[in-house]
Protein backbone atom coordinates (compact mmCIF):
# COMPACT_ATOMS: atom_id res chain seq x y z
CA UNK A 1 0.00 0.00 0.00
CA UNK A 2 1.72 3.09 -1.14
CA UNK A 3 0.54 6.61 -1.51
CA UNK A 4 0.76 6.03 -5.22
CA UNK A 5 -1.34 2.92 -5.30
CA UNK A 6 -3.48 3.30 -8.32
CA UNK A 7 -5.89 1.09 -6.78
CA UNK A 8 -9.27 0.68 -5.50
CA UNK A 9 -10.32 4.14 -4.73
CA UNK A 10 -13.61 4.97 -6.27
CA UNK A 11 -16.59 5.44 -4.17
CA UNK A 12 -20.20 5.73 -3.96
CA UNK A 13 -20.71 9.11 -2.52
CA UNK A 14 -23.27 11.52 -3.79
CA UNK A 15 -23.13 11.06 -7.52
CA UNK A 16 -24.81 14.01 -9.01
CA UNK A 17 -26.08 12.11 -11.98
CA UNK A 18 -29.18 13.72 -13.23
CA UNK A 19 -31.30 13.28 -16.27
CA UNK A 20 -33.62 10.51 -17.33
CA UNK A 21 -32.39 7.03 -16.63
CA UNK A 22 -32.17 4.99 -19.82
CA UNK A 23 -34.84 2.36 -20.16
CA UNK A 24 -33.55 -1.03 -18.95
CA UNK A 25 -34.20 -2.85 -22.24
CA UNK A 26 -32.27 -0.28 -24.21
CA UNK A 27 -29.44 -0.28 -21.70
CA UNK A 28 -29.15 -4.06 -21.92
CA UNK A 29 -29.10 -3.89 -25.70
CA UNK A 30 -26.38 -1.26 -25.64
CA UNK A 31 -24.40 -3.29 -23.13
CA UNK A 32 -24.61 -6.45 -25.21
CA UNK A 33 -23.61 -4.61 -28.36
CA UNK A 34 -20.54 -3.16 -26.65
CA UNK A 35 -19.61 -6.57 -25.27
CA UNK A 36 -19.88 -8.10 -28.75
CA UNK A 37 -17.68 -5.36 -30.18
CA UNK A 38 -15.19 -6.01 -27.39
CA UNK A 39 -15.15 -9.72 -28.20
CA UNK A 40 -14.71 -9.09 -31.92
CA UNK A 41 -11.83 -6.73 -31.23
CA UNK A 42 -10.22 -9.23 -28.86
CA UNK A 43 -10.46 -12.08 -31.34
CA UNK A 44 -9.10 -10.08 -34.25
CA UNK A 45 -6.02 -8.88 -32.38
CA UNK A 46 -3.70 -11.73 -33.33
CA UNK A 47 -4.26 -11.54 -37.11
CA UNK A 48 -4.22 -7.73 -36.97
CA UNK A 49 -0.89 -7.73 -35.16
CA UNK A 50 0.58 -10.12 -37.73
CA UNK A 51 -0.79 -8.03 -40.57
CA UNK A 52 0.57 -4.80 -39.11
CA UNK A 53 3.98 -6.27 -38.35
CA UNK A 54 4.61 -8.07 -41.62
CA UNK A 55 2.44 -6.31 -44.21
CA UNK A 56 2.15 -2.75 -43.02
CA UNK A 57 5.74 -2.67 -41.79
CA UNK A 58 8.44 -4.26 -43.94
CA UNK A 59 9.45 -6.88 -41.37
CA UNK A 60 10.05 -10.59 -41.76
CA UNK A 61 8.44 -13.11 -39.36
CA UNK A 62 11.67 -14.96 -38.64
CA UNK A 63 13.70 -11.97 -37.52
CA UNK A 64 14.22 -10.80 -33.92
CA UNK A 65 12.83 -7.38 -34.76
CA UNK A 66 9.80 -8.87 -36.49
CA UNK A 67 8.84 -11.13 -33.59
CA UNK A 68 9.46 -8.36 -31.07
CA UNK A 69 7.20 -5.95 -32.94
CA UNK A 70 4.49 -8.57 -33.36
CA UNK A 71 4.70 -9.36 -29.63
CA UNK A 72 4.24 -5.69 -28.74
CA UNK A 73 1.43 -5.08 -31.25
CA UNK A 74 -0.46 -8.10 -29.96
CA UNK A 75 0.17 -8.02 -26.20
CA UNK A 76 -0.38 -4.34 -25.53
CA UNK A 77 -3.89 -3.98 -26.99
CA UNK A 78 -4.79 -7.40 -25.59
CA UNK A 79 -3.86 -6.45 -22.03
CA UNK A 80 -5.55 -3.08 -22.45
CA UNK A 81 -8.80 -4.66 -23.65
CA UNK A 82 -8.78 -7.19 -20.81
CA UNK A 83 -8.01 -4.48 -18.29
CA UNK A 84 -10.85 -2.28 -19.50
CA UNK A 85 -13.37 -5.09 -19.18
CA UNK A 86 -12.21 -6.25 -15.75
CA UNK A 87 -11.86 -2.77 -14.28
CA UNK A 88 -15.34 -1.89 -15.54
CA UNK A 89 -16.83 -5.00 -13.94
CA UNK A 90 -14.89 -4.37 -10.72
CA UNK A 91 -16.13 -0.78 -10.69
CA UNK A 92 -19.70 -2.02 -10.80
CA UNK A 93 -19.11 -4.69 -8.14
CA UNK A 94 -17.43 -2.12 -5.93
CA UNK A 95 -20.43 0.15 -6.03
CA UNK A 96 -22.16 -2.50 -3.91
CA UNK A 97 -19.48 -2.57 -1.22
CA UNK A 98 -18.74 0.74 0.45
CA UNK A 99 -16.43 0.60 3.49
CA UNK A 100 -19.39 1.34 5.73
CA UNK A 101 -21.23 -1.65 4.35
CA UNK A 102 -18.15 -3.86 4.57
CA UNK A 103 -17.69 -2.82 8.16
CA UNK A 104 -21.24 -3.67 9.11
CA UNK A 105 -20.89 -7.07 7.43
CA UNK A 106 -17.69 -7.80 9.34
CA UNK A 107 -18.70 -6.37 12.71
CA UNK A 108 -20.98 -9.27 13.46
CA UNK A 109 -18.61 -12.07 12.46
CA UNK A 110 -16.80 -14.70 14.47
CA UNK A 111 -13.06 -14.84 13.88
CA UNK A 112 -12.50 -17.66 11.41
CA UNK A 113 -15.48 -16.88 9.17
CA UNK A 114 -14.65 -13.21 9.59
CA UNK A 115 -11.09 -13.69 8.29
CA UNK A 116 -12.34 -15.39 5.14
CA UNK A 117 -15.03 -12.76 4.53
CA UNK A 118 -12.61 -9.92 5.24
CA UNK A 119 -10.03 -11.26 2.80
CA UNK A 120 -12.67 -11.59 0.09
CA UNK A 121 -14.21 -8.18 0.80
CA UNK A 122 -10.72 -6.70 0.66
CA UNK A 123 -10.68 -7.47 -3.06
CA UNK A 124 -13.91 -5.68 -3.84
CA UNK A 125 -13.98 -2.80 -1.39
CA UNK A 126 -12.56 0.36 -2.85
CA UNK A 127 -9.93 1.98 -0.74
CA UNK A 128 -6.88 4.10 -1.26
CA UNK A 129 -3.83 3.57 0.87
CA UNK A 130 -4.17 6.94 2.54
CA UNK A 131 -7.40 5.62 4.01
CA UNK A 132 -5.69 2.67 5.68
CA UNK A 133 -5.54 4.31 9.09
CA UNK A 134 -9.04 5.82 9.20
CA UNK A 135 -10.41 2.52 7.90
CA UNK A 136 -8.46 0.56 10.49
CA UNK A 137 -9.88 2.71 13.29
CA UNK A 138 -13.35 2.67 11.81
CA UNK A 139 -13.28 -1.13 11.76
CA UNK A 140 -11.73 -1.69 15.17
CA UNK A 141 -13.99 0.76 16.98
CA UNK A 142 -17.04 -0.78 15.36
CA UNK A 143 -16.14 -4.10 16.96
CA UNK A 144 -14.50 -5.85 14.03
CA UNK A 145 -11.90 -8.20 15.62
CA UNK A 146 -8.27 -7.11 15.16
CA UNK A 147 -7.29 -10.22 13.17
CA UNK A 148 -10.27 -9.80 10.85
CA UNK A 149 -9.36 -6.15 10.29
CA UNK A 150 -5.86 -7.26 9.32
CA UNK A 151 -7.17 -9.85 6.86
CA UNK A 152 -8.95 -6.97 5.15
CA UNK A 153 -5.98 -4.61 5.20
CA UNK A 154 -3.68 -7.30 3.79
CA UNK A 155 -5.88 -8.57 0.98
CA UNK A 156 -6.97 -5.15 -0.28
CA UNK A 157 -3.61 -4.12 -1.79
CA UNK A 158 -2.23 -7.63 -2.27
CA UNK A 159 -4.93 -8.94 -4.56
CA UNK A 160 -5.05 -6.24 -7.15
CA UNK A 161 -7.10 -6.37 -10.33
CA UNK A 162 -4.44 -4.73 -12.48
CA UNK A 163 -1.88 -7.33 -11.41
CA UNK A 164 -4.46 -10.05 -11.96
CA UNK A 165 -5.23 -8.94 -15.51
CA UNK A 166 -1.57 -8.55 -16.41
CA UNK A 167 -0.72 -11.99 -15.07
CA UNK A 168 -3.66 -13.47 -16.94
CA UNK A 169 -2.77 -11.72 -20.17
CA UNK A 170 0.95 -12.47 -20.05
CA UNK A 171 1.17 -15.81 -18.21
CA UNK A 172 -2.24 -17.44 -18.58
CA UNK A 173 -5.12 -18.20 -16.27
CA UNK A 174 -3.33 -20.72 -14.04
CA UNK A 175 -0.79 -18.20 -12.82
CA UNK A 176 -3.48 -15.55 -12.39
CA UNK A 177 -5.70 -17.93 -10.40
CA UNK A 178 -2.81 -19.06 -8.20
CA UNK A 179 -1.88 -15.45 -7.54
CA UNK A 180 -5.42 -14.50 -6.50
CA UNK A 181 -5.91 -17.71 -4.51
CA UNK A 182 -2.65 -17.52 -2.62
CA UNK A 183 -3.05 -13.78 -2.02
CA UNK A 184 -6.41 -14.38 -0.35
CA UNK A 185 -4.93 -17.35 1.55
CA UNK A 186 -2.11 -15.20 2.93
CA UNK A 187 -4.59 -12.55 4.03
CA UNK A 188 -6.75 -15.15 5.78
CA UNK A 189 -3.85 -16.96 7.46
CA UNK A 190 -1.97 -13.82 8.48
CA UNK A 191 -5.09 -12.16 9.91
CA UNK A 192 -6.03 -15.33 11.74
CA UNK A 193 -2.53 -15.63 13.21
CA UNK A 194 -2.54 -12.02 14.38
CA UNK A 195 -5.95 -12.65 15.97
CA UNK A 196 -4.58 -15.73 17.81
CA UNK A 197 -1.61 -13.78 19.12
CA UNK A 198 -3.94 -11.52 21.11
CA UNK A 199 -2.23 -8.34 20.07
CA UNK A 200 -5.05 -5.98 21.08
CA UNK A 201 -2.72 -4.33 23.64
CA UNK A 202 -0.34 -3.42 20.82
CA UNK A 203 -2.77 -0.97 19.31
CA UNK A 204 -2.17 2.63 20.36
CA UNK A 205 -4.50 3.55 23.21
CA UNK A 206 -6.17 6.51 21.58
CA UNK A 207 -7.59 4.25 18.87
CA UNK A 208 -10.01 2.58 21.24
CA UNK A 209 -11.00 5.93 22.69
CA UNK A 210 -11.83 7.29 19.28
CA UNK A 211 -15.50 7.81 18.89
CA UNK A 212 -17.13 5.51 16.43
CA UNK A 213 -19.54 7.80 14.71
CA UNK A 214 -22.82 6.51 13.53
CA UNK A 215 -22.96 6.18 9.79
CA UNK A 216 -25.12 8.50 7.87
CA UNK A 217 -27.67 6.48 5.97
CA UNK A 218 -26.45 5.92 2.46
CA UNK A 219 -28.67 6.52 -0.48
CA UNK A 220 -28.93 3.27 -2.38
CA UNK A 221 -27.56 3.48 -5.88
CA UNK A 222 -29.39 2.69 -9.05
CA UNK A 223 -27.98 0.81 -12.03
CA UNK A 224 -27.19 3.88 -14.12
CA UNK A 225 -25.00 5.14 -11.28
CA UNK A 226 -23.31 1.77 -10.94
CA UNK A 227 -22.51 1.69 -14.65
CA UNK A 228 -21.23 5.24 -14.36
CA UNK A 229 -19.03 4.10 -11.47
CA UNK A 230 -17.64 1.35 -13.69
CA UNK A 231 -16.91 3.83 -16.48
CA UNK A 232 -15.27 6.16 -14.03
CA UNK A 233 -13.06 3.34 -12.74
CA UNK A 234 -11.97 2.59 -16.30
CA UNK A 235 -11.05 6.23 -17.01
CA UNK A 236 -9.26 6.45 -13.72
CA UNK A 237 -7.33 3.21 -13.55
CA UNK A 238 -6.75 2.39 -17.21
CA UNK A 239 -6.03 6.05 -17.91
CA UNK A 240 -3.36 6.01 -15.25
CA UNK A 241 -1.63 2.68 -15.79
CA UNK A 242 -1.47 2.35 -19.56
CA UNK A 243 1.91 4.08 -19.94
CA UNK A 244 3.45 1.68 -17.40
CA UNK A 245 1.99 -1.27 -19.23
CA UNK A 246 3.17 0.00 -22.60
CA UNK A 247 6.68 0.59 -21.27
CA UNK A 248 6.74 -2.76 -19.53
CA UNK A 249 5.55 -4.70 -22.55
CA UNK A 250 7.94 -2.79 -24.80
CA UNK A 251 10.78 -3.90 -22.53
CA UNK A 252 9.32 -7.39 -22.55
CA UNK A 253 9.12 -7.30 -26.33
CA UNK A 254 12.73 -6.22 -26.61
CA UNK A 255 13.80 -9.03 -24.34
CA UNK A 256 11.50 -11.42 -26.18
CA UNK A 257 13.55 -11.08 -29.31
CA UNK A 258 17.05 -10.48 -28.06
CA UNK A 259 18.26 -11.26 -24.55
CA UNK A 260 19.18 -14.91 -23.94
CA UNK A 261 16.53 -16.88 -22.08
CA UNK A 262 18.64 -17.94 -19.10
CA UNK A 263 20.15 -14.54 -18.34
CA UNK A 264 18.66 -14.39 -14.83
CA UNK A 265 18.57 -18.14 -14.22
CA UNK A 266 21.63 -18.30 -11.96
CA UNK A 267 20.44 -15.44 -9.76
CA UNK A 268 16.71 -15.98 -9.61
CA UNK A 269 16.25 -19.46 -11.02
CA UNK A 270 14.67 -22.44 -9.29
CA UNK A 271 17.97 -23.81 -8.10
CA UNK A 272 18.83 -20.70 -6.16
CA UNK A 273 16.73 -21.54 -3.07
CA UNK A 274 17.87 -18.43 -1.21
CA UNK A 275 16.55 -16.17 -3.92
CA UNK A 276 12.97 -16.26 -2.55
CA UNK A 277 13.78 -14.71 0.87
CA UNK A 278 16.11 -12.24 -0.81
CA UNK A 279 13.35 -11.24 -3.24
CA UNK A 280 10.91 -10.67 -0.36
CA UNK A 281 13.45 -8.65 1.62
CA UNK A 282 14.30 -6.55 -1.41
CA UNK A 283 10.63 -5.89 -2.07
CA UNK A 284 9.86 -4.34 1.32
CA UNK A 285 11.74 -1.04 0.97
CA UNK A 286 10.57 -0.75 -2.63
CA UNK A 287 7.09 0.29 -3.38
CA UNK A 288 5.27 0.64 -6.61
CA UNK A 289 1.82 0.05 -7.93
CA UNK A 290 0.94 -3.26 -9.51
CA UNK A 291 1.00 -1.85 -13.02
CA UNK A 292 4.58 -0.73 -12.58
CA UNK A 293 5.82 -3.96 -11.12
CA UNK A 294 4.21 -6.65 -13.28
CA UNK A 295 6.14 -5.72 -16.44
CA UNK A 296 9.35 -5.93 -14.39
CA UNK A 297 8.26 -9.40 -13.32
CA UNK A 298 7.64 -10.28 -16.95
CA UNK A 299 11.13 -9.12 -17.85
CA UNK A 300 12.68 -11.11 -14.99
CA UNK A 301 10.85 -14.27 -15.95
CA UNK A 302 11.64 -13.88 -19.63
CA UNK A 303 15.28 -13.83 -18.61
CA UNK A 304 15.04 -17.05 -16.64
CA UNK A 305 13.91 -16.05 -13.15
CA UNK A 306 11.73 -18.66 -11.48
CA UNK A 307 8.03 -17.74 -11.41
CA UNK A 308 7.69 -18.16 -7.64
CA UNK A 309 10.68 -15.98 -6.91
CA UNK A 310 9.43 -13.26 -9.23
CA UNK A 311 5.91 -13.39 -7.79
CA UNK A 312 7.19 -13.28 -4.22
CA UNK A 313 9.09 -10.16 -5.19
CA UNK A 314 5.95 -8.62 -6.67
CA UNK A 315 3.76 -9.45 -3.66
CA UNK A 316 6.37 -8.04 -1.33
CA UNK A 317 6.59 -4.80 -3.31
CA UNK A 318 2.84 -4.18 -3.46
CA UNK A 319 1.77 -5.84 -0.18
CA UNK A 320 4.47 -4.71 2.23
CA UNK A 321 6.05 -1.31 2.19
CA UNK A 322 7.98 0.92 4.54
CA UNK A 323 5.82 3.99 3.93
CA UNK A 324 2.85 1.88 4.92
CA UNK A 325 4.60 0.88 8.14
CA UNK A 326 5.21 4.54 8.88
CA UNK A 327 1.55 5.40 8.31
CA UNK A 328 0.40 2.46 10.43
CA UNK A 329 2.79 3.44 13.23
CA UNK A 330 0.24 6.10 14.20
CA UNK A 331 -2.16 3.40 15.29
CA UNK A 332 0.01 0.34 15.97
CA UNK A 333 2.84 -0.15 18.41
CA UNK A 334 6.14 -1.27 16.84
CA UNK A 335 5.74 -4.86 18.02
CA UNK A 336 2.46 -5.30 16.15
CA UNK A 337 3.92 -3.74 12.99
CA UNK A 338 6.83 -6.20 13.22
CA UNK A 339 4.40 -9.09 13.66
CA UNK A 340 2.33 -7.84 10.72
CA UNK A 341 5.35 -7.70 8.42
CA UNK A 342 6.73 -10.96 9.77
CA UNK A 343 3.52 -12.93 9.27
CA UNK A 344 2.76 -11.53 5.81
CA UNK A 345 6.40 -11.93 4.75
CA UNK A 346 6.32 -15.56 5.85
CA UNK A 347 3.15 -16.09 3.84
CA UNK A 348 4.77 -14.60 0.74
CA UNK A 349 7.79 -16.89 1.22
CA UNK A 350 5.53 -19.92 1.26
CA UNK A 351 3.81 -18.73 -1.91
CA UNK A 352 7.18 -18.18 -3.61
CA UNK A 353 8.35 -21.70 -2.86
CA UNK A 354 4.95 -23.11 -3.77
CA UNK A 355 5.00 -21.51 -7.23
CA UNK A 356 8.58 -22.63 -7.80
CA UNK A 357 7.53 -26.14 -6.84
CA UNK A 358 4.44 -26.25 -9.10
CA UNK A 359 5.81 -24.56 -12.25
Amino acid at each position, binding site marked *: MSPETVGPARCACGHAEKGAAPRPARAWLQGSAILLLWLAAYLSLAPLARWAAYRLLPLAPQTHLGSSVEFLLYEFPKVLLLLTLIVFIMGIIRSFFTPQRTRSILAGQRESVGNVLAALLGIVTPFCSC*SAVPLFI*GFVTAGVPLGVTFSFLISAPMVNEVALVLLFGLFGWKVAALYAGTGVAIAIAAGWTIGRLKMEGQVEDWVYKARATADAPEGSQQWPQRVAAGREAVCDIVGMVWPYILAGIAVGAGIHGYVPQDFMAALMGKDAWWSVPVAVALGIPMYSNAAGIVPVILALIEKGAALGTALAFMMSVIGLSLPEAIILRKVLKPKLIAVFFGVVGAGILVVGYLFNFIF
Partner: protein
Amino acid sequence: MKIEIFGTGCPKCHTAEKVIREVLTEMRQDAEVVKITDIQQIVERGVMWTPAVMIDGRKVCEGKVPTAAMVKEWLSGPA
Protein backbone atom coordinates in the same frame (compact mmCIF):
# COMPACT_ATOMS: atom_id res chain seq x y z
CA MET B 1 -19.38 29.03 4.60
CA LYS B 2 -16.74 26.67 5.89
CA ILE B 3 -15.38 23.92 3.65
CA GLU B 4 -13.28 21.24 5.30
CA ILE B 5 -11.18 18.81 3.32
CA PHE B 6 -10.06 15.67 5.10
CA GLY B 7 -7.00 13.79 3.93
CA THR B 8 -3.57 12.75 5.07
CA GLY B 9 -1.86 14.39 2.12
CA CYS B 10 -1.99 11.96 -0.75
CA PRO B 11 -2.29 13.18 -4.36
CA LYS B 12 -6.04 12.62 -4.29
CA CYS B 13 -6.52 14.94 -1.36
CA HIS B 14 -4.51 17.66 -3.09
CA THR B 15 -6.62 17.27 -6.20
CA ALA B 16 -9.77 17.59 -4.11
CA GLU B 17 -8.55 20.88 -2.68
CA LYS B 18 -7.57 22.16 -6.10
CA VAL B 19 -10.97 21.35 -7.62
CA ILE B 20 -12.80 23.08 -4.79
CA ARG B 21 -10.62 26.19 -4.93
CA GLU B 22 -11.02 26.42 -8.69
CA VAL B 23 -14.78 26.26 -8.48
CA LEU B 24 -14.81 28.88 -5.72
CA THR B 25 -12.78 31.23 -7.88
CA GLU B 26 -14.91 30.53 -10.91
CA MET B 27 -18.15 31.20 -9.05
CA ARG B 28 -16.60 34.18 -7.26
CA GLN B 29 -17.78 32.74 -4.00
CA ASP B 30 -16.05 33.31 -0.73
CA ALA B 31 -15.53 30.44 1.68
CA GLU B 32 -13.15 29.38 4.36
CA VAL B 33 -11.27 26.34 3.07
CA VAL B 34 -9.62 24.26 5.78
CA LYS B 35 -7.48 21.19 5.23
CA ILE B 36 -7.50 18.64 7.98
CA THR B 37 -4.51 16.34 7.76
CA ASP B 38 -4.22 15.06 11.31
CA ILE B 39 -5.34 11.46 11.44
CA GLN B 40 -6.66 11.71 14.94
CA GLN B 41 -8.87 14.63 13.97
CA ILE B 42 -10.00 12.93 10.78
CA VAL B 43 -11.11 9.89 12.73
CA GLU B 44 -12.79 11.89 15.45
CA ARG B 45 -14.91 13.65 12.87
CA GLY B 46 -16.19 10.29 11.72
CA VAL B 47 -14.36 10.09 8.41
CA MET B 48 -13.34 6.56 7.46
CA TRP B 49 -12.39 7.09 3.93
CA THR B 50 -10.26 9.91 2.52
CA PRO B 51 -10.47 12.32 0.81
CA ALA B 52 -13.69 13.56 2.34
CA VAL B 53 -15.35 16.95 2.24
CA MET B 54 -17.60 18.61 4.80
CA ILE B 55 -19.46 21.85 4.25
CA ASP B 56 -20.45 23.62 7.46
CA GLY B 57 -20.01 20.34 9.30
CA ARG B 58 -22.10 18.27 6.92
CA LYS B 59 -20.35 15.42 5.09
CA VAL B 60 -21.00 15.84 1.38
CA CYS B 61 -18.42 13.49 -0.04
CA GLU B 62 -16.25 10.66 1.21
CA GLY B 63 -13.64 8.53 -0.47
CA LYS B 64 -13.35 10.30 -3.76
CA VAL B 65 -12.14 13.41 -5.48
CA PRO B 66 -15.23 15.51 -6.16
CA THR B 67 -15.87 16.68 -9.70
CA ALA B 68 -16.32 20.36 -10.43
CA ALA B 69 -20.00 19.71 -11.14
CA MET B 70 -20.47 18.19 -7.70
CA VAL B 71 -18.78 21.12 -6.00
CA LYS B 72 -20.97 23.59 -7.87
CA GLU B 73 -24.04 21.77 -6.72
CA TRP B 74 -22.93 21.88 -3.08
CA LEU B 75 -22.15 25.58 -3.31
CA SER B 76 -25.39 26.57 -4.96
CA GLY B 77 -27.61 24.18 -3.02
CA PRO B 78 -29.01 24.90 0.43
CA ALA B 79 -25.92 24.79 2.63
